């Protein structure tokens, strides 16, 4: 005699087959390589016979394509190569938590990676996938927490400072630096502003602290309108602020002018520039692309003509304000929490696709080479049994 409870349990298994997210190791699975899957299943893994398949975005299609023909499609693909390793790590990651914090620029990228990773681990361990929490407290704030041992991974929109590394060392926290994507710092202005390109000398004049700092656009270049200049900037504890101090060629963040509206929240800058004809601000390129209907991104000229920030110009270094973005996993977490190692491995080995889906500039080939060095190093860390 079957109880109602047992009947319900069977029903759940049946739905799981239909949805195609059956636990690995279960005897039957409806999908096979080449079948269609859905966005919410991306990076889910399933077992067919003795081999594994994974739901992936079809190459050449994109989540952000404006051309309907190139709109994202998802298909199951058979997994070969390092699958076993990945699978071991994921299986051991059952029900664990990963705490990530830091840069607000990197957060959207880490969030996409986290979402994919959660769906991947859920497909292996049933309902209890790995929970990845991504916080936003700025690069500086993130390292503060990281070096107190409160987080497993710190996102950073600039490399760690030796002073921060010193605090980590004092607290016995060792870590590995991994470049994870690139970013162009976009200089954005109001849509009604006739200016579309600035030389780096003009950028410097605009942002450098000085007793004769310009107050109108025409103070910088006499052919520009006499609209009052209204500056919006990143929060002073953010990596974007530090990076802008260097990239804007004013000579470091301490030389940036102070009469700027600052905020850790890039939305404040978007609203300000959008609502003020003379407004100008800066933030990560992906944020500028996302808000292309509200603000205009300027081209920059460092002497070789105006360059628009794009994937190619940022990667090639022709766009003057480019920077790498990093993640910093804690070595102790890599050793004691297999989920962290699995996540970093997952993030790094799928970084091109994740960057593209999150509208970030992917790593260059030489950076990827450097990154795979990091992964080897992590793999070589003395492993503890989970």
């Amino acid at each position, binding site marked *: 005699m079957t109880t109602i409870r047992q009947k319900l349990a069977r029903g759940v298994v049946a739905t799981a087959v239909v949805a195609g997210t059956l636990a690995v190791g279960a005897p039957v699975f409806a999908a096979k390589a080449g079948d269609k899957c859905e966005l919410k299943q991306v990076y889910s893994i399933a077992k067919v016979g003795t081999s594994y398949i994974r739901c992936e975005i079809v190459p050449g299609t994109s989540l952000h394509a404006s051309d309907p023909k190139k709109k994202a499609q998802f298909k199951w693909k058979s997994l070969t190569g390092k699958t076993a390793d990945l699978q071991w790590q994921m299986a051991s990651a059952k029900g664990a938590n990963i705490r990530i914090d830091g840069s607000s620029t990197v957060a959207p990228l880490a969030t996409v990676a986290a979402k994919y990773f959660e769906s991947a681990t859920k497909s292996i361990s049933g309902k209890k996938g790995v929970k990845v929490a991504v916080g936003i*407290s*700025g690069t*500086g*704030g993130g390292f*503060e927490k990281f070096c107190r041992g409160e987080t497993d991974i710190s996102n950073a929109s*600039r*490399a*760690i*400072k*030796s*002073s921060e*590394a*010193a605090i980590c*060392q004092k607290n016995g*926290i*060792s*870590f*590995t*630096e*991994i*470049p994870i994507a*690139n970013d162009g710092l976009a200089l954005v202005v109001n849509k009604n502003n006739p200016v579309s390109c600035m030389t780096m000398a003009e950028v410097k004049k605009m942002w450098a602290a000085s007793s004769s700092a310009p107050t109108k656009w025409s103070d910088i270049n006499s052919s520009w309108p006499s609209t*009052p200049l*209204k500056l919006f900037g990143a*929060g*002073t*504890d953010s990596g974007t602020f530090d*990076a802008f101090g*260097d990239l804007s060629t004013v000579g*470091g*963040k*301490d030389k940036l002018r*102070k*009469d*700027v*509206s*600052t*905020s*850790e929240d890039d939305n404040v800058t978007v*609203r*300000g520039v*959008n*609502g*003020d*004809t003379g*407004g100008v601000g800066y933030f990560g390129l992906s944020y500028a692309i996302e808000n292309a209907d509200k603000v205009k991104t300027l081209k920059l000229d460092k002497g070789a003509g105006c360059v628009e920030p794009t994937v190619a110009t*940022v*990667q090639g*270094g022709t766009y003057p304000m*480019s*920077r*790498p973005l990093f993640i910093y996993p804690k*070595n102790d977490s890599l050793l004691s929490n297999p989920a962290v190692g699995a996540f970093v491995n997952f993030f790094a080995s799928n970084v091109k696709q994740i960057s593209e889906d999150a509208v970030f500039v992917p790593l*260059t080939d*030489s*950076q990827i*080479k*450097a990154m795979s*060095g990091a992964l080897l*190093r992590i793999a070589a860390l003395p492993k503890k049994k989970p």
Partner: protein
Amino acid sequence: MTTLMSSIPTDLRPSGHIQRQRRIERFVVAILMVIASSGVIITTGIVFSLVQPTYRFFTERAISGYGNEEFVGVEESAESGVRDSSELGFADESQIQYAEPVTLGEFFGSTAWYPQYGDGDFGVWPLLVGTFLIMLTASLIAVPAGVGIAFFLSQYAGQRARRILKPVLEVLAGVPTVVFGFFALFFVGPNIAKNIWPFNEVGIYSGLSAGITVGLMILPMMATLADDAISAVPNSLVEGAFALGATKREVCTGVILPAGLSGIMAAIIIALSRAIGETTIVLLAAGSQAVWTFNLGKEMQTMASYIGFAGIGDQPVDSKGYQTIFAVGLLLFIITFGLNMMSRKVVKRFREVYE
């Protein structure tokens, strides 16, 4: 005998446990006293938590930075490859820069307020001026309109109008301030502040739009308190004036206003301290720059909105910038406390006793 006892209602019968009743009574009184004195305990706690960091702000130095460090660009990140914590050069103690304690002279004597930058400027005047200007704008709207509403509701409005207007006013008083904040950002700023300010082009964030909206926010409270003050005027006075042939307007200005003045003044001061302490609206609508200016068309910060801004996480813990939160908080506390004391004095001074 039994019939007599049973005819008395149960709760009036002597209980026979007088001792126990007294004990319960004493216990209840003790609990009520603790609850009643919680105001004192909380106030003491607030003052204590503000005073200590404020003291450190004025007496101790804090880490302000570590000098300018190398920036790692796209190419360097590929060249340097992966770095492990063990390969990074560590900063030694000598690279750490300290910020000296802020003097009272700088705090009250300077007009530059940039606490979040490395060396930092800590003159509190921009915040004081911003607070004052936004309070002034708000009171210019809320005081006349609030008193007007109160007179209309209590003297002129018919039963039906009163039945509709009064609850609507109360609903308005219950709207969360964050809603007012977005109202300021997306309606008052672009549609009103931008068009009425003659002196400069008003941007999306301005003291003016925040001030106007704070005024609208405190309006229902102002009106209700003024209404209460007017209602407290003895009816005999009003009727007496009518009997002497005064018109309604003469009764309002000649009898009710002076008689209710103490209450109205108290209402104004309470509304003002509410305006001074308003955080969310100003934080959302007035921008994040504390500038030494008397031009309402520009961005400004009030003391309360600065605390909200800095508390969100723009300041590393224990930096001088972080400690400013408490110093400004204490100053704000002292100012609102002073205003409340003043309102008590005012009520006493202007009170007209009739009966």
